């Protein structure tokens, strides 16, 4: 029952081309086909956000998007946000402020937070809590996640000011 289609997706700046069934979920494409295992599977119903990626500038839950819907689009995962040599301020802040424990939600959490801070560089605590409500963490109780995001926001704002 092969009804494979041809897809082209840019992932973390690299163009990927492959044949896949349209029913394949994007999270599966990323994790199984492209070996990008930062985004995780937590619920498969869009509730937990462990699979959060950025697609064409918007936060998207990759567990409920078909690969066909991502065709031609630009996808960024945690792997594209920062690494050992170019750590994103959020990645550093989560460590500094103990914003993670088991780490399973962390890639989605940070990926979402990068978008939140792009949309709103100086969010209030309430705005952070509202803006992050699509990402569930079972370990931290969110208090230190909020703190981490506040700290990264302050650092990024200061850096921006210094640059201007």
């Amino acid at each position, binding site marked *: *029952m092969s009804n494979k289609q041809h897809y082209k997706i840019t992932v973390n700046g690299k163009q990927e081309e492959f044949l896949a*069934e349209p*029913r*394949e979920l994007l999270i*599966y494409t990323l*994790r*199984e086909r492209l*070996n*990008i*295992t*930062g*985004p*995780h*599977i*937590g*619920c*498969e*119903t869009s*509730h*937990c956000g*462990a699979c959060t990626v950025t697609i064409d500038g918007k936060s998207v839950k990759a567990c409920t998007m078909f690969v066909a819907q991502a065709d031609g689009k630009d996808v960024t*995962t*945690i*792997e594209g946000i*920062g*690494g*050992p040599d170019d*750590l994103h301020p959020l*990645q*550093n802040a*989560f*460590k*500094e402020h*103990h914003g*993670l*424990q*088991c*780490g*399973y939600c*962390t*890639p989605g959490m*940070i990926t979402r937070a990068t978008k939140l801070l792009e949309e709103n560089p100086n969010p209030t605590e309430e705005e*952070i*809590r*509202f803006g*992050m*409500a*699509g*990402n*569930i*963490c*079972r*370990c*931290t*109780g*969110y*208090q*230190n*996640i*909020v703190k981490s995001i506040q700290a990264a926001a302050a650092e990024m704002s200061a850096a921006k000011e210094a640059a201007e």
Partner: protein
Amino acid sequence: MKDEVTREERVDNLKGMGCSRKRVEDARFTQGKGNYVDDVKLDGMLFGDFVRSPYAHARIKNIDTAAALEVPGVLAVLTAADLEPLGLHWMPTLAGDKQMVLADGKVLFQGQEVAFVVAEDRYAAADGIELVEVEYEELEVIVDPFKSLESDVVLREDTVDENGKATDGAHGPRKHPNHIFTWNAGDKEPTEEVIANAEIVAEESMYYHRTHPCPLETCGCVASMDKVNGKLTLWGTFQAPHAIRTIVSLISGLEEHNIRVISPDIGGGFGNKVGAYPGYVCSVVASIVTGKPVKWIEDRMDNLMTTAFARDYWMKGKISATPEGKITGLHCHVTADHGGFDACADPTKFPAGFMNICTGSYDIPTAYLEVDGVYTNKAPGGVSYRCSFRVTEAVYFIERMIEVLAIKLDMDAAELRRINFIKKEQFPYTAALGWEYDSGDYHTAWDKALKAVDYDGLRAEQAQRVEDFKAGKTRKLMGIGLSFFTEIVGAGPVKNCDILGLGMFDSCEIRIHPTGSAIARLGTISQGQGHATTFAQILASEIGLPADSITIEEGDTDTAPYGLGTYGSRSTPVAGAATAMAGRKIRAKAQMIAAYLLEVHDDDVEFDVDRFVVKGAPEKFKTMKEIAFAAYNQAIPGIEPGLEAVSYYDPPNMTYPFGAYVCVMDVDVDTGVVDIRRFYALDDCGTRINPMIIEGQVHGGLTEALAVALGQEIAYDDMGNCKTGTLMDFFLPTAWEVPNYETDFTVTPSPHHPIGAKGVGESPHVGGVPCFSNAVQDAFRPFGNTHTNMPHDHWRIWKTANDLGLHG
């Protein structure tokens, strides 16, 4: 040799116990480089998934796998008939019961594993599952444990003899085919007599609802049978990898040295990942059958509906007191719903876990506890969800009974607690139900907590609010939730704690490298607790090498010493103790090497932070780094080369962390919505290893407590349909619902633990659930409420208000 560095700087440089060291785990997790079981990928790996029963109770008349086997990519479909010749169609549970691996003639709960489809990928497996045809004959469903004990319907045919009479179970005689065990503690007649003759008796029945640990990562494994070398490697979400290795050996017949169990990074456990599940057995069998690695990963629905529910305790209490409020007796009966199989993970001698800690923090002279375990047509389990075995239930029970007694006495609940606390000078204290509490200073903690929140001020504000409500000025009531908990963690002494005969000691093995760095391996496994960070801190303080130079490794049974794993807050009390003891062995040998190098007698040197110094001559010393090098490059008479140690630690007692929590909330009587204004948590976990991590554990545990108290449940309808199988229905709080918490502490070290630490990971959950619940109930106390059952979701709160006539 002159030392330019101050002693204080040397202490700081170690990053040892007491400092908020940043976590070494975080670099990989924040960069998407964690290695969880679903990230394990092997050449030729297959994927297995289950056909599950849509019915809660049914006979299986036929399973037709032919169409499924036609699906491209499907390689095999296993059923009980395939497993029976191997003796693997049933498996032992950790509770002394046994459980079907694949449905053997009938199913006992919705979602039960019926067949295992093995395919080239998940999509092919899913297609195969759709085409397995199972013919069911529905049977009468029992979801109520009380009805189960009166029913003629025999749920488990393996529990009766040829005359239909209940055979003895793992924990003694059974009084009905659907009855699992009766377990008791304390003195029945004296307790009943005290209560019968008491001036004041308060009684309450409460249901601690069924819920689920629901870690963000579900359970899963990858089994890889290497037939050439006869070795099985099993990666999985195992909170107890060594125990899993032993169980796999016992049930598969493979010799234990040919089995390697690896727990990679685990995405939260909370008790869900202690037990052995059919997916593990089927993956191993499928790998042996196909000769290829086989992966099995639960989806969220599988997880919530089948593996490891928690609680489901029907508790009936009586508490007696003098008119002045001194408690004289406590009686508790529990009907425990275990579902289709008793698959909890309690120590063998404790089928109801440590429920007998239910006298709590109070000096209660006489008590009796009896627990009846019962089978129903619900998912199997009874695991400890972020608590030592059944301690959450016990603490909820006593903290509700105290509130109910306070109402009966028309007394302030904080004062009632205070006059009944075990006093500081009574420790070690032997409770009426048998446990010996190691240390505590409850009055100091309680006074600190009440002062911090201005308790009297809160009560005055609450009284005003009641007046305002009655005058029609507000529709919001104010609740003040109190809880004072004592946990029992760190299972445990081998003399009374084992799982499947395996003593519950734990272990640490240390190797010091020539250049003064080290690796230590433990029998535990972190699931987010930060062991790689904190155990290195214990060692840094014990052996004087910087924590940053110590690698901590867990979870590989080929390299780690045998241990019973991480659950029940046992890592710090047991493996943490083993770590300190192994460190002291290193230090003892280092002392001899130092004395040799300094040309003095062993007794003439003493340890100081990171070195041994000659007594009275601090300028003469050898650092641990120098000693490590000498251990490998000098021939020292009478001393073997190398610097290694191993310790297996059998704790002399459990540890007893405690804490005082206060929650202040507003309750909207018209919408049932609560607003948590304040939550103050004082924890005493003995010696504090890493304050940052302790705080993080408290925040997380309180949030899981909030969830359980205010909305999270596994619910069934009368047909045994699980109504809460997705995160749409099963409440996990988001950042939006969760408040900021205020944390505080006192320090009462454990007298029997090498570093005085007691463990903290589960305290906030254990103490938090009654605190949130008491806050809701307290809001309604002025209007005649005594007790309502959790979870206090909006609907139930609205209903309480309505039942009390508050809607006019």
